C-alpha cells in the first residue's frame, strides 16, 4: 500500500477508562497530526482484530478502545495499542484516497429554521452564510452521535456559533447544522441543540446496509444549494460518493 513518509508521531498517552476501555490521546500542537494518528491507530486495531477487543472509536485527538475484560486484560490491550503505534511509526499513515460527497441542501425557511438567527449572530446577510457554507470542502473528522453523524470542521464564519438555549426535542433526518466551529448532517431523527440552517432531501442512514452510512472519516463533503421546489426531486435518493 502506498504510504506517506512517516512524519514524527505526536506524543501519545494511554488512560484507563473503566475496566473495559482505554482512552488514547495524541498531544501535539499539530491538530492534523493528532487526528491522523488516532484514526490510523483505529484502522490498525480494526485490521489486527485482537481477541477480546471490540473496536475503536476515534474522534479528533483521542481514541476509545473497548474490550471484553473476561477475554483480555487492560494490560494486554495497552501493550497492543503501543505495538500499533510503534508499527505506524515505521510504516507511516496508510494513504487512502478520500471519496467526495455532494450534498444538495434547501437553506432557510421550514428546512433551516435557525438560518436567520445564525446570519444575525455572524452579522452577515443570509446569502453570505449560504455562500460560506457551500464554498468549503469539508473533511469528515469522525462519526459522532447520533447514528454515525459526519462531524466536520465548520464553515469559515467570523464567530463560533452558539448552541440553542433550548435544544429541540426532535430534529429531522437530513438536518444540516452548525455549532461552535463545527458542521454536521443528522442521519436520523434525534434531539439536538445545534443551529439547523438547512436540510438535505438525501437519505444518509440506511439501517439495512452495512456500514449504515456511506462515508468514513477522511472523506470530503461539499454542500450545494437547491430550491424548496426541488426537494422532492431528490427525496428518497441515497447519499453516494461522487468519486
Amino acid at each position: 500500500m502506498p504510504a506517506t513518509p512517516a512524519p514524527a508521531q505526536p506524543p501519545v498517552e494511554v488512560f484507563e477508562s473503566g475496566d473495559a476501555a482505554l482512552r488514547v490521546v495524541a498531544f501535539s500542537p499539530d491538530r492534523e497530526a493528532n487526528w491522523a494518528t488516532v484514526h490510523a491507530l483505529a484502522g490498525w486495531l480494526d485490521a489486527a482484530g485482537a481477541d477480546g477487543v471490540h473496536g475503536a472509536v476515534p474522534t479528533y485527538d483521542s481514541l476509545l478502545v473497548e474490550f471484553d475484560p473476561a477475554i483480555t486484560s487492560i494490560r494486554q490491550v495497552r501493550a497492543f495499542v503501543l505495538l500499533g503505534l510503534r508499527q505506524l511509526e515505521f510504516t507511516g499513515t496508510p494513504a487512502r484516497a478520500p471519496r467526495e460527497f455532494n450534498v444538495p441542501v434547501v437553506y432557510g425557511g421550514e428546512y433551516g429554521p435557525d438560518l436567520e438567527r445564525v446570519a444575525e449572530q455572524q452579522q452577515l446577510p443570509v446569502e453570505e452564510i449560504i455562500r460560506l457554507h457551500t464554498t468549503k470542502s469539508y473533511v469528515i473528522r469522525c462519526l459522532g452521535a447520533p447514528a454515525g453523524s459526519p462531524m466536520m470542521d465548520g464553515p469559515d464564519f467570523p464567530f463560533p456559533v452558539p448552541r440553542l438555549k433550548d435544544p429541540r426535542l426532535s430534529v429531522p433526518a437530513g438536518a444540516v447544522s452548525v455549532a461552535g466551529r463545527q458542521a454536521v448532517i443528522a442521519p436520523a431523527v434525534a434531539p439536538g441543540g445545534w443551529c439547523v440552517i438547512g436540510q438535505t432531501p438525501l437519505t444518509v442512514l440506511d439501517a439495512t446496509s452495512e456500514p449504515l452510512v456511506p462515508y468514513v472519516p477522511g472523506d470530503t463533503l461539499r454542500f450545494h444549494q437547491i430550491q424548496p421546489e426541488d426537494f422532492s426531486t431528490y427525496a428518497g435518493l441515497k447519499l453516494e460518493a461522487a468519486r
Partner: protein
Amino acid sequence: MSLIIQQPGNSVVTDLGRFRGPRFGLPVNGALDQFSARAANILAGNGDNAPLLEVTALDFRMRATTNLLIAVTGAPLRLTVGGRECQQWEPVSVRAGETVALRRIDGGLRAYVAVHGSVQAPVLLGSCAPDTVVGFGLRLREGTELKTLKTVAPIRQPYFDLPLFRLGLTRPEFSSTAMVEVTDGPDVDEFGSTADLLFTTEYTVSARSNHIGLRLGGALPERQSSAEVLSRGVPVGAIEVPSREELLVLHRGRGVTAGYPVLAVVTSRSLDVLAQTRPGHKIRFKKTSVPEATAKHRAALRELETLRSTVGTVFPLLGIGGQPGSQQLAPAAGT
C-alpha cells in the same frame, strides 16, 4: 411454533449488545443487566448471546402455541405458567396453550425471559438489540407473534410440590439502596477536591433515567476548568456532570461520543446493579481499582460457567437439547 404476546408492558427482544456498533457511531445497547440475561440464556440451554426478552417495570403476559422450556431471571417478580406459581432463576416447562405471566416486578426494574432454542429477531451489525435512534429492533406489542425455534416436551416433577430444578445459582441481591463500584475516570483531576463528593453523597435515581443513562440527584462534583473539550468516545458507565442539577451515569444506550469530562467509570459488574435501580432508589458510590473490578467480573462469569456445566449435565438426562425425537420423553410418573 411461537409465542403470542398478550400483554406487552414494556418489552423488547434483545441480546448482549451490538459490539461492532460504536465504530459506526451506534451505541452497544443490549441487555442492561448482563448477568441476568446471560443466566437466563444458560438456564434455558442457550448460548449467552441468544436473543431473549427484556421486560422493564410493567406486567407482561404471553401464550405459548407449542411446548417450551423457558427461564426467567432479573428483578424479583411473580411468575406463573398456566396459573401455576413457578420459580425464577430455574428452567420452567411450558405446555402448548399455557400463558406465561410476569407480574409485580419489584425491588428491581428489569426481568429477562429466555426460551430454549431462542426466538427469531432481525439482526443489524451482528445483533438484534433495539436501537431507538436508528429505529431498529423488535419492540413487543399486543398480538406480536414471536417465532420459536425448538420445542421441548413437557417435563413434570413426580412429587407435586417440589420445584422441577434446583440448579443453585447464587442470585444477585436487589436493594433500594445500591452500592455501585467505580474506578477513577480519565478526567478525574479536572474536578479537583470536589471529586470526593461522589463517595460521600447518597444519590437518588431520577424518574428521567433510561437505557441511555441514569440521572442522579445529590451533591455534585464541579469541574474546575472551563477549557473546551473536543468530542471523544466515552465508555459505558462514564459518570459526567453535564448540568448543575444532576449527575449523569451513561449506560448501554449512550451516544458513543460526548464532550463532557469523565469523572469516574462504573465497573462492568456494577452496571448490572444500576440496571436494576428504580426511580427513587438510593445509590452510594465506592472507589475500586481496575484489577479488582476485573477480578469480580470474572468471578461472576465463572459462576455462570459452573451453571452452564450443570445445565449441560442435567438437560441431556431429561432429553432436552438432544436430537429431534429424543425430546419425546415419556411424562414422568406420578402425574
